[in-house]
């Protein structure tokens, strides 16, 4: 405001003179194009370098660094004439859409119940509903086999009651159900963070005119959170295309193959890894992403329509559910929690403390701490736990800072650079972690200035930042979008620079979202597994990738113990983050 007072411009001045008199402090040109260009440019390099490498690799006949590599379409010819590819593509599509059909409605419903109503036990629920996200899907699937697999303890119990097991998790419907339920938290996080910020006056108005709670949620709340629902749906479609653990554990034994397990097969199918074929499948995944992003942009073109957080009165009041409503809502959540948290975590917990399980095995006779004792004897595993904590807690915080910078660069930016931003953000998420990790490994190996970083945690951090980009950025953007333009405009008209507007207006408003974003990114980094497989080395082990390499030999005792540790770690981290977050809210 002081700038405003100083700038009455009493004397007519030439433009040049004005620029001289009021240097950088004055908001002369009224945009932050340099900042935007630099940030989006750097991000584009970080994303497009590995992606470009993959595209380039797809047009070669061997590894790009091999002297035998020749330019050509051979790799495409192989993939596009392979019957198994089309089979995998079809299965993947069914899997993804099935998963979204389950995850989005459930996630939206959960978000509504927890953020907009007076449902009981909210604090606890907020943590519990996120639990399925804590575990990498590979371990989640594994937890289900221990509890509800053909000889799981729940299956055996049910069989004892009714004589047979009425489900089969080793089938496509079984996989879709499990994947759908486990992706509910992803939807919940997006939708709840925008619901939390909605002013409640509209809902209250609807309630006072006699609308039922379901009518309110459908006709008032739903339209206002539509952007986050669309974000969540398109992201989950991509996640479905990228899912690896669930198809690997549950689909593989019976030959149900999706694109990621098809890629995985290409690493061994020909004896030596066929990078060019993996790259072709990756390019196919990229080509599937582009129309998705395009459709998303088209749907969200008029972002102003969704602005909900005005300059005042943004306090949230909750809707009353009433006694019956409480019972119904809590039962729905309770059942979902039982299926998607208790069953898999129960399976993992049981597995972590026993060596044998299944038909005819008395679990209580098997109880042991040996799995953890063995784990603590191996330095690389202990180091993996420490590294993972550092990467997720510190790295997660730094990542939120980076995403915020990128988010601001794209904020109220309608130029070509923003179009670019929208496309590059989702690209890495469309690629299987294994492939993007491999590409980053090559980037850090072959780009001269980066080579010293390869044996450090920084290389893994960079890859994680890029892989987590879509989550983190969309989360921040969703919050940034809800800051009403009037607020920023009024700051600008009083003479604040864009930088100052961001610092004094935008960031303080979105600050509650930052702690939540940190928690989210922390979880994402904790559960990440495929990305680090090629990047980690002695000294830079991370839990998730250790589990993948252990899976090759099948050291399930260690894997179960590691996954339980990672669940506990994340739970503790999240509880802490929520405490911090809660303080900021009040």
């Amino acid at each position, binding site marked *: 405001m002081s700038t405003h007072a100083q700038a009455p411009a009493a004397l007519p001045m030439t433009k040049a003179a004005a620029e001289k008199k009021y240097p950088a402090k004055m908001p002369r040109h009224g945009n932050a194009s340099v900042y935007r260009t630099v940030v989006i440019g750097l991000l584009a390099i970080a994303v497009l370098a590995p992606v470009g490498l993959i595209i380039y690799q797809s047009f070669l006949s061997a590894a790009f660094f091999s002297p035998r590599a020749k330019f050509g379409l051979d790799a495409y010819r192989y993939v596009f004439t392979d019957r198994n590819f089309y089979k995998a593509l079809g299965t993947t599509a069914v899997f993804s859409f099935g998963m979204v059909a389950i995850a989005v409605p459930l996630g939206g419903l959960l978000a509504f119940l927890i953020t907009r109503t007076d449902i009981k036990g909210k604090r606890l629920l907020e943590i519990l509903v996120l639990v399925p996200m804590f575990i990498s899907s590979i371990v989640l699937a594994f937890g289900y086999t221990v509890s509800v697999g053909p000889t799981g303890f729940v299956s055996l119990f049910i069989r004892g009651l009714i004589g047979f097991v009425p489900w089969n998790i080793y089938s496509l419907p079984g996989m879709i159900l499990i994947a759908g339920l486990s992706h509910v938290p992803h939807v919940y996080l997006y939708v709840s963070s925008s619901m939390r910020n909605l002013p409640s006056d509209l809902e209250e108005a609807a309630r006072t005119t006699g609308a039922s709670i379901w009518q309110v949620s459908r006709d008032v709340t739903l339209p206002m959170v539509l952007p986050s629902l669309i974000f969540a749906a398109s992201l989950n479609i991509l996640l479905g295309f990228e899912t690896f653990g669930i198809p690997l554990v549950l689909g*593989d034994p019976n030959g149900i193959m999706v694109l990621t397990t098809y890629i995985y097969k290409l690493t061994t199918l020909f004896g030596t890894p066929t990078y060019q074929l993996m790259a072709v499948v990756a390019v196919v995944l990229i080509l599937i992403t582009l129309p998705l992003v395009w459709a998303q942009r088209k749907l969200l073109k008029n972002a102003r329509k969704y602005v909900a957080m005005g300059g005042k009165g943004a306090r949230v009041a909750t809707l009353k559910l009433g006694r019956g409503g409480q019972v119904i809502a809590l039962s729905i959540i309770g059942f979902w929690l039982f299926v998607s948290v208790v069953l898999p975590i129960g399976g993992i917990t049981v597995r972590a403390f026993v060596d*044998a399980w299944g038909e005819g095995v008395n679990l209580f006779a098997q109880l042991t701490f040996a799995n953890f004792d063995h784990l603590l004897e191996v330095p690389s595993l202990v180091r993996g736990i420490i590294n993972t904590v550092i990467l997720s807690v510190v790295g997660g915080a730094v990542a939120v800072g980076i995403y915020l910078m990128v988010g601001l660069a794209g904020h109220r930016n309608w130029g070509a650079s923003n179009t670019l931003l929208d496309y590059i953000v989702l690209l890495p998420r469309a690629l299987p972690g294994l492939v993007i990790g491999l590409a980053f490994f090559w980037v850090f190996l072959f780009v001269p200035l980066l080579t010293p970083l390869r044996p450090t945690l920084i290389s893994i951090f960079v890859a994680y930042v890029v892989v987590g980009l879509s989550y983190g950025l969309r989360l921040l953007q969703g919050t940034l979008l809800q800051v009403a333009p009037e607020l920023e405009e009024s700051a600008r008209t009083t003479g604040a620079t864009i930088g100052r507007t961001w610092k004094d207006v935008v960031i303080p408003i979105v600050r509650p979202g930052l702690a939540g974003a940190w928690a989210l990114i922390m979880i994402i980094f904790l559960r990440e597994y495929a990305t680090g497989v090629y990047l980690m080395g002695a000294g830079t082990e991370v839990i998730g990738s250790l589990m993948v390499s252990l899976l090759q030999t099948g*050291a399930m005792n260690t894997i179960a113990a590691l996954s339980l540790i990672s669940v506990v770690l994340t739970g503790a981290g999240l509880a802490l983050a929520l405490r911090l977050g809660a303080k900021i809210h009040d």
Partner: protein
Amino acid sequence: MNTKTVRSLAAATALLGFSAVSAWAQDVPAGYPADYAAIIEAAKKEGTVSIYTSTDAAQSQKLQDAFTAKYGIKIAYNDLGTNGAYNQVISEAAASQVTADVVWSSAMDLQMTLVQDGYAEEYASPEAANLPAWATYKNILYGTTVEPIGMIYNTKALTEDKLPKTYADLITFLKDNKGELQGKVATFDPEKSGSGFLNHSNDAKNRPDFWDLAKAMGDDGVKIYSSSGGMKETVVSGENVIAINIIGSYALDWIKESPNLGVHFATDYTPAFSRLALVTKGAPHPNAAKVFVDFMLSKEGQSLLAEGGLPSVREDVSAGLNIKTLNERVGGGLKPIAVDEGVLEYMDQMKRVQFLNDWKAALGR
């Protein structure tokens, strides 16, 4: 470091005979050439050795600890899996950023490919004479273990006396018990697992009746997995009754702790693979690499590996199992896969694709 000076120094020390005990000559194991002290000295100067491997750290922890205690050389242990190790080695060589000193992997074919493509450095280990002839290849590739391929079964569902004695019996067993075994037989997926491919293709090479076995498994609705551990999990739980062609050395360890798991071998035919070690070309710590490979092959190192559940290729090792006691344990039919160009047969892509097509046809998929 001037190697010549060190060499002559070493020679001088040797000349002085037993009475002149230098601080570092003490470390030279019995039977090693006198100038080995110079290698040890140089290795200690290098201070660290970087291992790229597919062996879980837990299995080799004793070996690692003893090596570091003995020589004061730190080990950077990279458990990357077979493909990961291969990929990193060729990528690093292409970028002129070699960081691996020793590659130690169970993928015999990939290890031999590294040798053939010039990624390995020749090194005549003084321990080579203590290994069986089949376990070494041209002073460049060394077999460090002998790990049998066998079956595991659920002891609640099957008893030892019901199990097939020979390879041919196994085929009959699968055919005769089709009803009970339907959907409860597990084996390796040769498409997804390098080990699985090696096991199956080696059988196909040595057993004319392998395809009958494949067909019998297909008729039983066999389920295919990408790791031995994954199969163990399903057999322990009773989801599968028997798993065929899994890594038997792991299984011999598992049965100690799992009450309802049994391990079984065909008395007439038990193939065995070996974890192979090589020193990389352009290794940043070439001397430490040599000392590590020698230690791994030494009686001490082999004992430590055998204790960790990886049977020794040396007959003079008494800890755990060695090649001789292992042969007794599996019923006398142990047939180690020789470390030679033979392992490359299916690296030829046409042959490989043909094998996999035959495999799928036999399984009826």
